[in-house]
């Protein structure tokens, strides 16, 4: 149990490091070593830690626990083949964590980050549309059933390509340094993470590493099918590198543009669902 969580944390942090490395190489920079994010997390955990005087103290600390807790829960949902709707719920609850993280500090930068996180609520809509498409195909929202369906009918990546594209966009909107990462844009210092330093930041890095692992693993599991761990990790790495390429060559969008793009993708997917409904009866 807990050993798998530690494993997922380290792989997630390593993925973050690879992400930074690939972005740097695409942009012609040497970039940090790929284990940089692991060192980063350890470094933060050794730094002096306290709670800012202006913060809502309980909430300030509690969001860190919640951030790690929900993504550990999501990992177990994936592994035990639980409900896809529950995974979707965790993704939405992550928004509450981002929001609470920014608001609880009392810092204006944190609050700007929090407000941007509520503005980007549209990033959940493509995921809901993805869930709906998967339900149309498989008739079930249990991850175990979806995996079984793919073993009979072939991967959903081919059967339901638009849904896979939407899920890809969902993962992209949660990647660091991506076109949609407006909540941690540098013009507002570090956005909602500004005031979480020291141990709190290390805890958040652990939570975000689990998040990256879970989202990439969910993509592989839902659209390609159940695979042995080594092969799944390799595919996750490939998906990650493709995401890094997108992040490296796209500038950060303005907050309202992110909403527009995500809403447009959702709209396209809704049309796809309606067409599917007509075709499949």
């Amino acid at each position: 149990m807990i050993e798998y969580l530690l494993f997922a944390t380290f792989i997630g942090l390593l993925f973050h490091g690879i992400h930074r490395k690939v972005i740097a190489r695409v942009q012609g920079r040497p970039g940090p070593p790929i284990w940089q994010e692991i060192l980063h997390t350890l470094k933060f955990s050794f730094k002096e830690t306290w709670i800012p005087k202006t913060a809502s103290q309980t909430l300030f600390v509690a969001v860190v626990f919640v951030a790690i807790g929900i993504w550990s829960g999501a990992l177990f949902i994936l592994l035990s083949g639980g409900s896809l709707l529950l995974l979707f719920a965790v993704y939405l609850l992550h928004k509450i964590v981002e929001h609470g993280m920014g608001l609880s500090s009392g810092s204006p930068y944190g609050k700007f980050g929090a407000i941007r996180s509520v503005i980007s609520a549209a990033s959940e809509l493509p995921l809901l549309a993805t869930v709906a498409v998967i339900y149309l195909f498989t008739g079930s929202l249990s991850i175990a059933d979806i995996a079984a369906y793919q073993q009979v009918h072939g991967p959903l990546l081919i059967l339901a390509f638009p849904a896979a594209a939407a899920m890809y966009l969902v993962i992209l909107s949660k990647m660091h340094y991506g076109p949609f990462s407006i909540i941690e844009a540098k013009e507002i210092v570090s956005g909602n993470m500004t005031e979480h330093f020291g141990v709190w930041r290390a805890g958040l890095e652990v939570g975000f590493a689990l998040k990256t692992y879970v989202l990439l693993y969910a993509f592989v599991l839902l659209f390609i099918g159940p695979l042995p761990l080594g092969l799944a990790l390799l595919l996750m790495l490939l998906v990650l590198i493709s995401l890094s390429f997108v992040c490296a060559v796209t500038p950060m969008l303005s907050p309202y543009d992110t909403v527009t793009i995500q809403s447009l993708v959702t709209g396209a997917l809704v049309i796809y669902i309606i067409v599917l409904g007509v075709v499949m009866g």
Partner: protein
Amino acid sequence: MFNLPTTNIGGQELFVLEFGDIVAYFSPYTTALFVFALIFTALAIVSRPEKQMDIAFGGDAYYAKVVDPELMRFQRFMAIACGLATLGAMVTGDVFNFTLFASLVGITNIGIVAAYRNRHVLNAAFQYGIVAMLATVPLFGGAAIVVASTGTLSMWELFTGAVAVPLIAKAFLVLGVMGEGMAPFYVAKAEITRAQGAPFILMVHVSSLLLFLRVAEIVISM
């Protein structure tokens, strides 16, 4: 006696709670949502609001806002009421009951935001209030269409394959919940989050997201 018909969506039911003919149920899905609402209600009870810092534009000056204890007490009361309504909406097994809880969430959300005396926040709260009131029409209308077309409001009956719920009723329910929770309003009315009291403002967000998650389950199951 009770067997949840849709085990492939939220999992099997773990525990049922009978209130006469309203049977609340805890499946893995609704339990997870319930626990999450419980955590944030507890946080709203125990945590104190933050002291907001504001930047004066055009210079390096910043100032701290003071926390008014009266306002904090009212916001906390509303946040706890909102948490209780959310807890109810997460586990209820009756469509009309769900809509009642959803409208209660809408009312308490306005209360949390409108307590703060700032022109921008009050403006946003006023407009949100209008939307929430308008949204009660599709919300209760959806429940009314469900009972008129199927003769029952119990999810235990509605979730079986034998009962067909018209698409318009489902659409109305979703529309109503989207209006009651503030979800779509975040994009247009981010001023709401200027209000002080992070744990209480967060409750607005928690309740509307959880309501949305629950209505997604109900609509897919029906």
